[in-house]
């Protein structure tokens, strides 16, 4: 137990150091922008990993939650002058409530059926955002005011970097805490065997609903912030492809690995930017890299490399 505890703090310390030192390596606004986007995606994917990786459920509709929060913040702040932070918290509460109401009927489904239901949810939200043009600006989207806390105004990517970095660290900490607790074990038990979890007293419905709500709230907070950061929102951000991309990040980084979620988000956010140099071949190479990673590291990047390290170190100790 003690070693688990210390390895937990070692990971969190390392993450803090990386977040603190990364700006030294970032040369321009464009690179800071990518770092901020990585942070946003990583926070959503950490939440989604709790649902998919640990509890073994699936959602193809989480971009809908992000979109709802983004529009809620955009409209209340830009049109009605709400303080952005109040707007963000209100959006999180509303999205959490919506997720709570939807979760019970939807999470009775399993596997492909659950994927279909959450897909439908995302599409409904996306259609509403497109159609309610009077409120949302329709397919043209709408401009969003800058994020302010009191008299302090966040505009540049450099400034956003520190807020997003701090939130990412917080998200990792919360996720690690949750997993290393009776609740976290209950979530993993739901993944392992629902009926076995129930006969030792785990209310599986409660935990499925709970993790669905938590992951929706993570997406909601990012949605509100991202709307201000990009200063513009369109229904595309709430679309199906965004949801799928996050699921890919979970799988690529490694299911049931919090740091895997961060790595998956970082790679899938940065890779297209790096590959733009290849011009016409960009998508082909991108696809090839994805296929190779999944074939060579089938459990995802972090768990597969972790297992490799353990094998190597146990071989080194094997001589004793």
């Amino acid at each position, binding site marked *: *137990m003690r070693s688990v*505890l210390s390895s937990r703090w070692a990971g969190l310390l390392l993450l803090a150091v990386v977040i603190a030192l990364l700006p030294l390596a970032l040369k321009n606004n464009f690179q800071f922008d990518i770092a901020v986007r990585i942070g946003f995606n990583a926070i959503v994917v950490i939440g989604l990993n709790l649902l998919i990786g640990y509890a073994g459920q699936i959602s193809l509709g989480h971009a809908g939650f992000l979109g709802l929060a983004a529009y809620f913040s955009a409209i209340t702040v830009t049109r009605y002058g709400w303080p952005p932070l109040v707007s963000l918290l209100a959006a999180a509460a509303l999205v959490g409530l919506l997720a709570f109401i939807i979760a019970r009927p939807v999470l009775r489904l399993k596997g492909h059926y659950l994927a279909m239901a959450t897909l439908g949810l995302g599409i409904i939200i996306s259609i509403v955002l497109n159609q309610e043009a009077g409120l949302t600006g329709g397919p043209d989207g709408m401009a969003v005011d800058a994020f302010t806390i009191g008299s302090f105004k966040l505009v540049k990517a450099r400034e956003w970097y520190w807020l997003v970095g701090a939130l990412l660290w917080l998200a990792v900490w*919360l996720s690690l*805490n*949750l997993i*290393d*607790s*009776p*609740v*976290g*074990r*209950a979530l*993993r*038990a739901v*993944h*392992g*065997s629902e*009926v*076995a*979890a*129930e*006969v*030792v*007293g*785990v*209310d*599986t419905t409660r935990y499925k609903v*709970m993790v669905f709500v938590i992951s929706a709230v993570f997406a909601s907070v990012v949605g509100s912030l991202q709307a201000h950061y990009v200063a513009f929102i369109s229904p595309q951000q709430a679309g199906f492809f965004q949801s799928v991309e996050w699921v890919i990040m979970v799988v690529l980084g490694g299911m*049931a690995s919090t740091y895997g979620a961060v790595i998956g988000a970082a790679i899938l956010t940065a890779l297209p930017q790096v590959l733009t140099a290849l011009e016409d071949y960009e998508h082909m190479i991108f696809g090839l890299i994805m296929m190779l990673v999944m074939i060579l590291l089938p459990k995802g990047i972090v768990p597969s490399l972790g297992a490799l390290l353990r094998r190597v170190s146990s071989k080194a100790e094997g001589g004793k």
Partner: protein
Amino acid sequence: MTLLNVENLSKEFGGVHAISDLTFTINPGTIHSIIGPNGAGKTTLFNLITGVYTPSTGRVLFKDQPVTGLRPNELAARGMSRTFQNLQIFMNMTALENVLVGRHLHLNTGILPSLFRWPSIGRGDRAAAALAKDLMAFVGLEKYIGWDADAMPYGALKRLEIARALAAEPKLLLLDEPAAGLNATESREIDEVIKKVAAQGVTVVLVEHDMKMVMEISDHILVLDYGRKLTEGTPAEVRQNPDVIAAYLGQVG
């Protein structure tokens, strides 16, 4: 006082009567076996008692309280736990974590305390881990404490299920074929574990095909055939019963 009353219990699956009008009681502090040929409805009966299935008709009383239709987790909270004929191990966790899930009802499962890791979570988990290790030793799994569940052999997983069920501190423990697929030595070891569990005051209900084991450790035996009660009684009574012999060996003459 009885611990479990099953009254006129029936379960139909699309016209097939898996259990028909079954009535029996289980007294506390006994080892109670349920036997019968394949397809007699033993596992269905377990699923009905533990809330995995809802009965078509009839009712179940646990500690004199009606519990028909309650979910398995609600029954677990009242002191009922079980194992499975086809293993239901959390293969995505370590052996110790499997047993720790069994402590679920006795630990702080608040969402905010877990997210922010209040000190009580760490304290509770450390105490639970110590107890889980003791339970693994109790069922003879001390060498597997640090193992991943998916790396353990079949016989060890059978015992891991018992340790997990015991971690919930049940009053009534239902074991569905704990010796199935085990060799004679392993079977005898499971035998010892069950006796030790019963000696601690846990009432055990057993579904088992290993007749030697059943006859040796049971206080009371219920014989099912085609979802109905064929007979019940002490091992000696059941062994002498011509109906039982007929059901197992086929009609004579």
